[in-house]
């Protein structure tokens, strides 16, 4: 019998070592595995290398991991945003090393790691400062750069639902980096709103098959959903709109 579910986020992140390379899913706040990051902060791993599209915003999730001084290196495409003050400070004070990667090369390097590709040639960034130090090669009259895979020790990602085999479905644009990061880490840890009985996810609709997933933890429904249906009434951070009636809450909603 296969059962990848664990009881809570702390159990889900158990064993992440100091100095580990950790992929963190999400694009901005959408799909960011906040509960898993909070648990990682609590268990205390430090000196981490983070692979993520952004470097966190506001004071929660990835931003808090950086604020707590747990991250020594970050590989990402777009660290700077209006509310990335924790990254900005750590970077300016020299406490955090940045490897800047164009977003499509970042995605493909992650995909390559999960797919067993040794390296690949990409046309993106040719002639720009981000091409410096990379092998250039002309293929059929076009110039490409040699890009290497980015594997990780751990991936933390966020889905909508999963079963005990680790099959995962996502929701709208919160899918983003989840499916490729799930393939590229030695240990893939997925938080979902709910774990559903085996056989209830439509096999045609599963985005991440369980072979890529090691641990699953249910963290409760999103505030903007009620029994899986969209009810709205929140801002982009999922906070209730000022003056709005709170969305009806099922048990375990957050």
């Amino acid at each position: 019998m296969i059962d990848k579910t664990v009881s809570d986020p702390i159990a889900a992140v158990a064993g992440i070592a100091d100095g580990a390379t950790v992929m963190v899913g999400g694009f901005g706040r959408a799909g960011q595995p906040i509960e898993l990051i909070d648990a990682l902060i609590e268990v205390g791993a430090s000196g981490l290398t983070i692979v993520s599209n952004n470097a966190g915003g506001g004071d929660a999730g990835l931003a808090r991991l950086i604020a707590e001084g747990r991250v020594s290196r970050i590989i990402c495409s777009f660290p700077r945003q209006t509310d990335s003050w924790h990254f900005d400070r750590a970077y300016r004070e020299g406490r955090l090393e940045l490897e800047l990667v164009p977003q499509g090369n970042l995605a493909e390097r992650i995909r390559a790691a999960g797919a067993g590709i040794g390296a690949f040639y990409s046309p993106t960034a040719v002639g720009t400062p981000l091409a410096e130090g990379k092998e250039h090669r002309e293929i059929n009259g076009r110039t490409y750069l040699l890009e290497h895979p980015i594997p990780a020790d751990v991936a933390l990602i966020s889905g909508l639902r999963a079963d005990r085999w680790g099959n995962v479905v996502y929701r709208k644009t919160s899918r983003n980096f989840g499916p490729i990061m799930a393939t590229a880490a030695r240990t893939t840890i997925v938080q979902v709103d709910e774990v559903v009985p085996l056989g209830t996810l439509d096999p045609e609709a599963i985005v991440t098959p369980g072979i890529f997933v090691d641990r699953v933890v249910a963290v409760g429904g999103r505030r903007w959903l009620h029994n899986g249906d969209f009810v709205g009434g929140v801002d982009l951070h999922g906070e209730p709109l000022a003056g709005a009636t709170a969305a009806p809450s099922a048990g375990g909603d957050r």
Partner: protein
Amino acid sequence: MTDRIDGTDRTDRIGRDALARRVAADIPDGAYVNLGIGAPTLVADHLPAGTEIILHTENGMLGMGPAPAPGEIDPDLINAGKLAVTELPGAAYFHHADSFGMMRGGHLDLCILGAFQVSQTGDLANWSTGAPDAIPAVGGAMDLAMGAKEVYVMTDLLTKSGESKLVATCTYPLTGVGCVTRVYTDRAVFDVTPEGFAVREVFGTTTLDELRQLTGLALTLVDQAAIDEEF
């Protein structure tokens, strides 16, 4: 007193919404299009009625719709600028590697980007001013610039301090080499040709001589007969 051109109190240029409408008018029915962060996003509000132009957002969606009403914001449904959007009938979601495969693989018909500078050979600089204290961030700009079949730029002709964004050679760090094919500005529309920038259309009272003076470039004119033949 002459007639004002929409959106400004000047007669020699057009406002952002008018420019967005002008860009939108050139997008063919059925095109798959990515609109960059900032001013290009405005183009979505002016797509010609009765057409099916499918908007791509690099964070994993085709068939992106307009912004939702405040009570209908869905934090799981955002665009590349991390703003709330909606899905249209026929929309599709996909992961990031597929999304950038759509660009790199030549499936995206057009992207419209902002710019710091565009050179007369179509080089684009739009991600970094190269200032030593700036925190670098590139996002998907380089992938879009090299991947889309056509790259249009939408921008003011001049910077806030009055320098031309059309240049002989970019001085800012490049986003892509030889990738831009057309530039829509508040004063004129330019094609990038083997002979450099060619003026396709001027707005209001602006003249070719003024454009030459403002840009410092030897601009040519696109042959009107050639434009007519495109349609």
